[in-house]
């Protein structure tokens, strides 16, 4: 009986989620909140790239998995850098305007 149960454990071992899964969850969380605004745009653009990236994911072949995961990570990187640089740019502009006014 123990052998049989061990076989069952082997058969039902945890599987690895698709590589784009995490990115898709974040995109879905962002998309859940409909509306407008710059953050929504960032989120939806990121989600769109993730969806495109997921197109690269054909089946569960290792190479394609890696590719899709990489594209999803790249999409998230783009969103992160866009927000960072935009915020820095806004701050720089505000500082410049205020010092010019002085």
């Amino acid at each position, binding site marked *: 009986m123990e052998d049989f149960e*061990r*076989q*069952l454990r082997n*058969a*039902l*071992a*945890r599987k690895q989620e*698709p590589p784009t899964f995490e990115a898709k969850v974040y995109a879905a*969380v962002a998309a859940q909140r409909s509306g407008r605004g710059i953050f929504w745009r960032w989120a939806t653009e990121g989600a769109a790239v993730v969806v495109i990236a997921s197109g690269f994911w054909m089946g569960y072949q290792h190479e394609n998995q890696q590719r899709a995961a990489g594209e999803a990570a790249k999409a998230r990187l783009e969103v992160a850098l866009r927000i960072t640089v935009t915020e820095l740019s806004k701050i720089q502009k505000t500082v410049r305007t205020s010092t010019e006014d002085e």
Partner: protein
Amino acid sequence: MTFAEVLRANQSMVFSLAFHFLRDPGAAEEVAQDVFLRLHQKFDELEGPRHATFWLRKATSRRAIDYVRKRGSRATIALDDIAEPSSAEQPGDPLLNRRLRQLIATLPEKPRMVMVLRYQEDLMPEEISEILEMPVRTVKSHLQRSLAMLREKIDRSLGDIR
């Protein structure tokens, strides 16, 4: 505990529960994504990582069973055609593993989920009883009957593995 931490720690568990129950990678991903979306909405009601894991197991079980019920008579993927998602390690005889998964997929919904929770998550009947909200004796009875059926069919098709 942040949402990101809970997601990362449990995504394989949630996806696998749905996959072993549904035997359809696309449907499993859909269910798992929906479960995490719900988790995000309920996040501030959770009391810690253990509670989050319990909540996720319960929500995934419920959502996967609902999914099968809603799908009804819609055509499903032939069991032999399923592309297996990768797992870190797949010990044991791959043919036997495959046959066992096929047989588990033929079980009715509740006993099938009991088996998946028992042997994927290594949960005790008492824990399964809480997750599926059924008496412990019902869980034990599902386990006994499912094991007997699986053993009989495996013995018949592959010979005694003892």
